[in-house]
C-alpha cells in the first residue's frame, strides 16, 4: 500500500494505492488521525489505485468518517474500482459514505 497526500483547494486529497489489509491498516489509521487532529476537516480519498480492502481497512475508513463528521467536516471517497465498490455495496457503506465517480466531483 502507498499513501500520498496533496492539498487541492479546500480539500486534502489522500491517494491510497495497492492493498489495504491487516498488515498495513495501522499505518493509514495513524496518518488519517494525524491529519484530522492537525485540523484537516475536508478530506477526499482517491481510491483509483486501491485494488483490495479488508475489513480492517474498512474500519479505518469508518473511523475517519466518524471523527471528521463529528468535527463538522467532510470525508469523501472517489474513484472506487469495481471490486471495492462491490464490497462497499455489500457492507452497506454506500449509504453512509459520500462516494463520487471522479476526484473533481469529490472536491467540488
Amino acid at each position, binding site marked *: 500500500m502507498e499513501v500520498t497526500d496533496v492539498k487541492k483547494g479546500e480539500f486534502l486529497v489522500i491517494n491510497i494505492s495497492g492493498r489495504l*489489509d*491487516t*498488515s498495513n491498516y495501522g499505518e493509514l489509521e495513524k496518518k488519517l488521525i494525524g491529519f484530522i487532529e492537525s485540523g484537516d476537516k475536508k478530506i477526499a480519498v482517491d481510491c483509483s489505485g486501491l485494488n*483490495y480492502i*479488508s*475489513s*480492517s481497512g*474498512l*474500519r479505518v475508513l*469508518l*473511523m475517519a468518517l*466518524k471523527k471528521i463528521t463529528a468535527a463538522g467536516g467532510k470525508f469523501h471517497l472517489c474513484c472506487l474500482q469495481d471490486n471495492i465498490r462491490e464490497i462497499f*455495496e*455489500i*457492507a*452497506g*457503506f*454506500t*449509504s*453512509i459514505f459520500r462516494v463520487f465517480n471522479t476526484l473533481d466531483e469529490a472536491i467540488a
Partner: protein
Amino acid sequence: MVVDDEVDLEPLIRQKFRKQIRTGEYDFVFAHNGLEALASLIEFPDIGIILSDINMPEMDGLTLLTKLKELKNPSLKTVIVSAYGDMENIRVAMNRGAFDFLTKPINFDDLEITINKTLEETLIQRKALHEHDQLISIRHDLNVAREIQQGILPKTFPPFPNRTDFEIFANMVAAKEVGGDFYDFFMIDNDRLGFVIGDVSGKGIPAAIFMAVSRTLIRATGLKGMPAGECMHYANNLLCNESVSCMFVTVFYGIMNMKTGEMEYANAGHNPPYILKKDGTIEMVPTTGDIILGCFEDQPFKSEKVILSPGDGVLLFTDGVTEAFNKADEVYGDPRLESLLQTMKDFSAEKIVMTIADDVNTYAMGVAQSDDITLLSLKYNG
C-alpha cells in the same frame, strides 16, 4: 561488578571512575573470587557487566564463566582481565562466552571504552528481552482470544440428531492471528431454525470479545422469535455502545421454516450466501444493502424472504473463503467458488463444507492464512 582477589583494585577503580559514580552513570560492586561474584549477582540482579580476573582462590574466572553461562542471561556480559600475552586463557575465556577481554596492567581509558561498549550491548539485549517478554504476553492474549472464539461455537454434529427434515454443518478454520468469525444456530420453536454467520473486523482479544457479544445478542433476540431484520436492528443498537474505534461485524441471519420451506433473512453487510438448488444450479441470495452492525445507531434492516424446495440448500461463508490468496498473490474469488458449488448436486451439508474448505486449502497452499475461513451449510429436506 569487578571480580579480583587484589584488594587494592577497589580504591583504584573508585578513584578513576569517581565522576561516573557520582553522576550515577556507573555503580560498582566488588567481589574477590568467583563464588563471591555469584553471591553478589543474587543480591544485585541489575548487574550488567562483570569484569573478572582469571586467577583467584575458591573459584577462578574461567569456572565463573561456566557458571554464568548456566544462568542463561543474555543481558549479562563478562569481560575477562588477564596478563598480557596469556592468549591460551583468553581463548578459553572467549570460548566459554566472555564478551571481551582486557590485559593487565589495566589501561583505564581502554577499560572505560570497553565498559561503555559492553553496557551499550547489555542495554540492547535488555530491550530485546523486554520485547520478547511482551511478545510472549501478546501470544498469551491471543490464546485467550482463540479460546473465547472457539469456545462459543457449537461443535457437535449433527446438532439435532432427531430431525430428518434438515441437516446443518458448519466449520471454522481460524487464522493464526485470531480474527472474529463465528457461526451459530438454534431452534426458535419446533419449526423454525435460526442460523447465523458473522465476521468481526479486526483481530485479537477486542475482536474476540466483540464477536462473543454479537453472537450472544443475536441468539438472545433470535430466540424471542423476532423477525430477522428486527433482530439486526436491536443487536446493532446494543453493539454500537460496545464498539470502540469503529469495530464492526458483518452478519447474515436466517430463519428457516421447516414446515413451509420459507427462509426469512436479514443481511448486515455480509457477503451474500448461495442457494444450492436440488438440480445442481446455484443462486445468490439477493443482498439487502443494509449496513454492518456496531457502527451507526438506528439503522433500518430489512427482512427478506426466499422459498426453498425440499432438496435445496443454503451456503453461508465469510470472506476468508473468497479472499484466500495463493502463491501468485491472486484471490480465490467468487467465480471459483461458484463453479465448485455447481459440482455439488446431492452433497450432504457436511460434504459441501469440507469440499470447499479442502479446495481453499489446496488453492492457498504455502501461503499463510490471513483470515478465518468459516462455512455453514444448511440442507432443507422438507
